């Protein structure tokens, strides 16, 4: 439940707080739950993105990057624990 809290807060932030705050919240949520990054990014772009606004949906890209970074961090931490 505690691991899901950042994801729930980031989801709420997408609809309540300025997008810069949501941006940070999505990244933070991804650190706890890697898949949350890309999922929240896609949700943000489904709601807000219009093709005329930009060529690429930035929130989806950010989510993908956050997920990738989070997976690398999780992998690194796991490796350190096993090898340590």
């Amino acid at each position, binding site marked *: 439940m505690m691991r899901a809290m950042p994801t729930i807060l980031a989801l709420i932030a997408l609809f*309540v707080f300025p997008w810069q705050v949501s941006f940070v919240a999505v990244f933070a949520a991804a650190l706890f739950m890697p898949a949350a990054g890309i*999922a929240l990014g896609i949700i943000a772009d489904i709601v*807000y993105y219009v093709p005329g*606004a930009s060529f690429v949906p*930035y929130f989806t890209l950010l989510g993908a990057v956050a997920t990738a970074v989070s997976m690398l961090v999780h992998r690194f931490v796991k490796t350190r624990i096993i090898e340590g």
Partner: protein
Amino acid sequence: MRKRFSRRHNSIVGAYPWAGPAALALIVLALLFFILRIFLPGALVALATPLWVSGNALTAGAGNTLSFFGDKGALIEERNRLEADAAALYAKNAALEAQVADLTRLLGERTEAGPGVLAGVLSRPPVSPYDTLILDQGTEAGVAVGDRVLGPGGLPLGTIESVAKRSARALLYSTPARETESWVGESRIPLTLVGEGAGAMSAIVAREAGVVVGDQVYVPGPGAVPLGVVVAVGSDPSSPRSRVDIRPLANPFSVTWVTVVP
């Protein structure tokens, strides 16, 4: 005989075992994105509406609470100014009431609906990241792609970019890199507005055009409709062109209702 295993063996696959599933997940999610966007464009908007409404109420409430801690002198000054404004509005209202009574006697009480669709703004910058407005009216109310979105007093804000059954997304003129043909000043010098995000716009004009701070900027509508005002003009003497910064007349950060017109 002891067999040696090398970590370098098949290093591309071995080093990134998650790459395959991750790529697959990305493709699946991208497909999901397009399916949801094409078949259910308004579904998430409908789900998110209570959150947006709560967020708007929370923002307004926080603003009112914080104003309590404001500077006392400034508050007294503001109160005096508001009292003066209220007195002026009272007098104006009395004059308008008399005018309405006269016109009602002349024309009767028949009223006709104004043009366009009145729509509430569910989400606006800075909550929405692409300088878009999410509106609570869609195709059911007659909103269509390409319609113009007007703010308070009929000031143009942007155009409808996508529309669902009960919601629509409007793209502001200030969307980053969005180009809009317009005019500036009383002599209506043509210029191309470029969105800078967060309500701001800019343009490049010839120095000898004589654009000055305070000039109005107009966009095509029924005639020339005022959109913004010039707030800064670049002053580089070595350049034949000047950068002009434009502020919109209607603040997109605080717009709550808009009119959508074809």
